């Protein structure tokens, strides 16, 4: 099945899968670059001479569905060489970079493109090196002749020299700064940002056109001492019809797909308007939609449409409530890999799973599950109640605790609840975790066995079995982001842990080992 995605969106998905490669950093020879991403291909195309067929304005607009006004604006504002700086801004996945690069390709000949994606250039120095190496005629190397400037003054002088050489030959240079918004969070971003934005004034070269691409709104760049503003082109998010046009682009069976989109797109559009996310959700849904069909080339009639709609309706309801889908055969290892790749992503993965149907099995050892549960309890329950909760009777007797509550105590309870909501899960030392772990494993042994024998004997044997590699399990759970290890407490000096799972997942894990979790949870 062909994917109903345009190259732009594949760029995003590949960018999220792997950090996008740093272009032409001076330390890495150009030969060893990672495989080109679609954006890089587009970049190469923008720098290359245009093909004969692809150089008309209509062809350009056809490649940018729903971006007609913006593309025309860009063309007009960039067109004959001297131009004031330009800033394209708009949300993520609205086609800013794509429109710009295609427009620049259309504007050939006699232009030179210098493209710096600031997201992949982590420091001013890397940015300077990248810009200068793209401008220098010979491949930039780390030889002593080319010293990478690290001071802004040296950089501007070097940049002016390089640009002067090119401009004097009558060429127009387009300097593109993509992802400008990330500079704000850089170490010295506060100083670099005005420099980049005032480059037009500093260089004073009319044949050099500066283009900034930013997902942050222009007011993010206002500075205390006033700023020189570029011309703005705003990229709004796509409307429903534009999204439909984009998704329909080059689909092998447009009739079937449009009947599918007329059912599925509107509800999903209420949740998110980003094309990349929509296409990711729609693709598996469409496969579901086609399931009853034997022939994928079939053109649906009204009756079949209704049948297909009824078939897909339940899946649609599920899809609305999940951020992404984990294939059924996904093993724990794969998920762990994903978890260690980026901070927070694993947590989302697991959080996302609770929306899934319950048949997904946790591939986790029993002791790991118990450890997870005890970490959850340690994070949620106040430490002072441990003794009461884990006494010999096992668990909290809710009936005893019922007391008449006065107005004042009710109010106090409310504020405590508020506080808990704000604070989130608490941290705990390793000792407490192990103690709870020991308690709940012994209790569950009692429950499971139900044999009338000396309890402590049985629990001891069970515990030793489960306790054998608990530290190893703990580090595994930390690595897969179920638990997070925070900095050591200044008073106690030992590391503290925090559980990252939510209640739904904890209950699910508890159910899988038949553990009465709710009995041990302190309810306020």
């Amino acid at each position, binding site marked *: 099945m062909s994917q109903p995605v345009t190259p732009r969106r594949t760029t995003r998905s590949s960018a999220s899968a792997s950090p996008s490669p740093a272009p032409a950093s001076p330390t890495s020879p150009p030969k060893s670059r990672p495989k080109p991403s679609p954006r890089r291909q587009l970049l190469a195309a923008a720098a290359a001479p245009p093909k004969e067929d692809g150089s008309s304005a209509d062809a350009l607009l056809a490649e940018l569905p729903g971006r007609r006004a913006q593309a025309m*604006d860009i063309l*007009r*504002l960039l*067109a*004959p*060489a*001297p*131009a*004031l700086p330009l800033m394209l*801004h*708009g*949300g*993520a996945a609205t086609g800013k970079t794509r429109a710009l690069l295609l427009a620049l390709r259309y504007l050939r000949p006699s232009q030179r493109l210098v493209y710096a994606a600031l997201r992949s250039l982590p420091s001013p120095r890397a940015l300077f090196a990248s810009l200068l190496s793209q401008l220098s005629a010979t491949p930039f190397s780390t030889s002593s002749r080319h010293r990478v400037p690290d*001071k*802004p*003054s040296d950089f501007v002088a070097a940049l002016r020299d390089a640009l002067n050489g090119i401009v004097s030959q009558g060429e127009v240079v387009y300097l593109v700064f993509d992802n400008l918004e990330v500079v704000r969070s850089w170490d010295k971003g506060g100083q670099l940002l*005005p*420099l980049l934005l*005032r480059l037009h*004034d*500093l260089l*004073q070269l*009319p044949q050099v056109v500066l283009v900034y691409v930013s*997902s*942050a*709104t*222009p*007011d*993010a760049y206002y500075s205390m*001492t*006033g*700023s*020189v*503003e570029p*011309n*703005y082109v*705003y990229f*709004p998010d796509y409307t429903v019809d534009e999204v439909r046009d984009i998704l329909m682009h080059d689909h092998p069976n447009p009739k079937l797909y449009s009947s599918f989109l007329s059912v599925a797109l509107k509800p999903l*559009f*209420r*949740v*998110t*308007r*980003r094309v990349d996310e929509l296409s990711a959700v729609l693709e598996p849904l469409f496969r579901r939609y086609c399931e009853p069909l034997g022939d994928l080339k079939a053109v649906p009639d009204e009756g079949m449409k209704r049948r297909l709609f009824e078939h897909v309706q339940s899946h649609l309801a599920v899809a609305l*409530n*999940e*951020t992404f889908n984990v294939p059924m055969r996904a093993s724990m290892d794969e998920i762990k890999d994903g978890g260690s790749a980026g901070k927070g992503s694993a947590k989302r993965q697991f*959080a*996302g799973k*609770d*929306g899934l149907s319950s048949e997904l099995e946790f591939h986790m050892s029993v002791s790991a599950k118990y450890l997870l549960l005890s970490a959850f309890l340690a994070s949620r329950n106040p430490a002072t109640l441990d003794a009461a909760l884990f006494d010999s009777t096992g668990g909290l007797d809710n009936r005893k605790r019922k007391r008449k509550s006065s107005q004042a105590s009710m109010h106090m309870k409310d504020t405590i609840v508020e506080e808990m*909501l*704000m604070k*989130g*899960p608490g941290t705990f030392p390793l000792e407490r975790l192990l103690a709870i772990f020991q308690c709940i494993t012994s209790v569950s042994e009692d429950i499971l066995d139900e044999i009338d024998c000396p309890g402590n004997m049985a629990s001891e044997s069970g515990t030793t079995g489960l306790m054998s590699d608990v530290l190893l399990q703990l580090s595994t759970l930390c690595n897969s982001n179920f638990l*997070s290890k*925070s*900095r050591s407490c200044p008073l106690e000096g030992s590391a503290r842990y925090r559980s*990252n799972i*939510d209640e739904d997942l904890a209950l699910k894990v508890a159910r899988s080992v038949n553990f009465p979790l709710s009995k041990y949870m302190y309810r306020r």
Partner: protein
Amino acid sequence: MAAAAAAASVASQAQAVLRGRLCDQAVVHSALRSSPDTNYSKLKYLVASSVSEACNNSVLLLGPRGCGKAAVRFSFLVYSSAPLSAVFSDAGVVFDEMCQWAIYDFTLWVVSAWTEVVDMVLDDLKKDHPDAISVIRLNGMLHSDDNCATKEIARQLCLEHQLSFSKMASSDDNTEFMIDMLRECGLAHKTIIFVLEEFDLFAQGKQRLLYSLLDAMQSLTSQAVVIGVSCRLDADQLLEKRVRSRFSHRKLLFVPSSVDSLQRLMEHLLALPEDSPLPTKYVREYNARITSIFNDKKFKGILSSLTDADATTSHILRFLFRVVSYMDIDSGLLSMQSFMNALSSMQRQPKMDSLQDLSILELYILVCMNRLEDKEKSSYNFITIMKEYKSVQDAYKTSDKYSHTVCFRAFEHLLDRELISFADNKGRNQALEYRPVKLLISSRELAESLKLNTTCPAVLQKLLDRERYM
């Protein structure tokens, strides 16, 4: 067909001419210099009197950024061939006198962009006495570091006087060299003019550069002018005592030009000259169209709404650039419509725009946050927002009830769009759900955007309205 193509090429030629003019600071400010302005005469009087009385003087020109600061630099880089107006001829004479006069130190603080005056005077001087002045330009954004600045000064001095510059020289060597050069130039009756752009940035740190510059000017032999350019009104307050005591202050306030002079500027910039290589018939037609637009009542409205927001020259330039870019290529003429289009594209409200881009769920979250703020919650996080969202959904039983994770993704989108942000930078290692957040939009903006949004469910509107009148 051929005629149409020819017209289009003429139009694009004209467009290129106009764009080139708008991007060229020298042309833009040559328009301003020909207009007799009261500020000019004030400054002229100030300068003239201070020179004739041979007193130390410092003048502070105050005004907004973006009115031709670059013109200072430009006039030195490119030798401008634009004829100088009569207005400034005698100011030039005064400066002329100053250069021939023996020892004279002059400090001019220009706070703002309004530096065409300086520009023109220096330009004139340079024309009359190519050997009598040399100009050193520094930019606070690039040379705020003292070592860097002295090195740059030494480099430019070497360049100016055909000396060889050593990259290896230490900062002390460079400072010493600068002082020597000042003395030598003073003996040769040659004035060195220092132009310090973004002057306020030089006032960071120990201000060693400013001190050594101004201290060198205290000696009898040196002959130098320091021009500080800044858009901070309190630029002189930033100076240390020892630096501040070395010059006297005088401030002169420059306000943005009046609407009339801006209109003259626009006419000057947009009108095509008769003697251009473009066909005369076309030029006449074009200029007639421009004149008729300028006399239109609608245009007055456009101009006033433009200057109400920002009356600096750079703002007007950007506006004109857009107008020229929106020129009708077939006829090659500007129309009222291109002015209207340019105005509407300049008057965007980015926050409102991105509010219009939100999905229904994202709007729900914003409304919930707004409700929480109206309940005077001191701080709240995603979990509390979800509690509010649940209660709203339970009360109204809408179809927009989504799971926790989907809501969290919408929440992250809002963070990405910078419509909401974390309330503090503490707790970076805490999970995002628990970090306190705040709204970055007002409830009025939210209400307006809900009104404008055609797909927005009525419940949302009600949720927002009811709590406001409760």
